């Protein structure tokens, strides 16, 4: 083990922990809110089960706006909102707010795309069997789109890691922030490289897990 890693062991573990908290909350937000938003984007489209131009345009515009912000600006823009719900705009907890918001917008698009890949005939068959909208979604759409939903989440998680690296601007910490402050700003280039290696390993692991799971559950 290189000496420099041992020297900063505590800080490194702390920053990894902060990254896990930020990314973990982003994942929870993506699944609990991004999935339903993506599902409504799909359902409210023209010609789909809940065809509703108003809901569709509203969701579509909102998701587009959030996604078109350069993320750093979104973080700054959301400071008043963050302060409102967390009580402060500084720290790891505060950092999760903009991360959760971008997570919802990001994953909902991928959910929408996965659902669009489900053959229309399957939905038609479900309706012909007397399924309600809720039943179509849970017993047919999610079942048929599940490997795409997992792959989409994998892609999203990797983006969340990337987004989390700049949360240093609001004191969010994390591996990226540590690499910048200690590796870059204090000219410890080797330390920065080690942090990059940790990130690479993390991303590889997530990608591998996502691909494996999605292949296992894909019977198409």
């Amino acid at each position, binding site marked *: 083990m290189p000496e420099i890693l041992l020297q900063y062991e505590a800080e490194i573990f702390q920053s990894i922990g902060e990254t896990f908290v930020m990314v973990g909350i982003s994942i929870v937000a993506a699944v609990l809110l991004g999935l339903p938003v993506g599902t409504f984007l799909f359902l409210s489209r023209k010609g789909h089960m809940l065809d509703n131009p108003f809901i569709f345009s509203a969701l579509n515009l909102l998701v587009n706006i959030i996604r078109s912000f350069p993320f750093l600006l979104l973080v700054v823009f959301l400071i008043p909102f963050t302060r409102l719900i967390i009580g402060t705009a500084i720290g790891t907890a505060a950092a999760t707010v903009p991360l959760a918001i971008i997570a919802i917008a990001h994953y909902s698009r991928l959910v929408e795309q996965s659902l669009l890949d489900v053959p229309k*005939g399957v939905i038609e*068959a479900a*309706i012909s069997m007397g399924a309600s909208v809720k039943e179509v979604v849970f017993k047919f759409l999610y079942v048929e789109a599940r490997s795409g939903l997992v792959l989409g989440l994998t892609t999203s998680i990797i983006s969340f890691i990337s987004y989390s690296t700049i949360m240093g601007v609001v004191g969010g910490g994390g591996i990226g922030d540590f690499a910048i402050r200690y590796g870059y700003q204090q000219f410890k280039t080797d330390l920065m490289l080690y942090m990059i290696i940790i990130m690479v390993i993390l991303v590889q692991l997530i990608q591998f897990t996502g691909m494996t799971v999605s292949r296992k559950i894909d*019977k*198409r």
Partner: protein
Amino acid sequence: MIKLHQVNKSYDQFQAIQSVSLEINKGEIYGIIGASGAGKSTLLRLMNLIEVPDDGEVEVNGEALTKLSSRKLRQARKSIGMIFQHFNLVANRTVYENVAVSLALSGFPRTERRGRVMECLRFVGLESLMGQYPAQLSGGQKQRVAIARALANNPQVLLCDEPTSSLDPNTTAEVLSVLEDVNKSLGVTIVIVSHEMEVIKSICTKVTVMENGKVFETVSTSPQGVQKIDDNPQYFVEQLVRNGAIDHA
């Protein structure tokens, strides 16, 4: 069993169905034939209100579907089975699960589901494949699973949208014999949309010819009569009537 009265359906400017009225009796195997774009699939989809008519009435099993609330309509659909050209099975569910989901939707008692699924799979001769996924099956087998799924809730009517159009001739015969069995031994009224004369010839008792969104002619079939039907409905119907091969319905 099925009554359509003055039904119209249009998409934007295109009139897919133009004031069609027809009546299908209990126990019939009713064919709908016509060139592509004639409106036959749309007509079939009006029978379980997957396509909602612009106006007119649709009545199935004595219920006016067009007047039902959406909850009641879903209920009514459970006694109208449907199968499709591309089978439309859930690819991520096994053969068993594909049939079972239809029972789950209708609230069939949980403890009796297994028995009912196996009964349906036995009927189509596929109980040995219950653990397979659709991707592992041949086209004919997939269509038989779809038939089992459609039969699970004991429907009065089975709507078939080009049920054999993506199958080879041998498999077509196999699926048609299952459908005939469904009609004979279970007493299910069957409506088949097809552009293949073979299908109509081999099992239908009555046939409606569609052209440009209208019912061109409805005739009962006799073996010699139907043989002459080709892509020109006007021509063939005139010919058939002249030759006395068919009776006007």
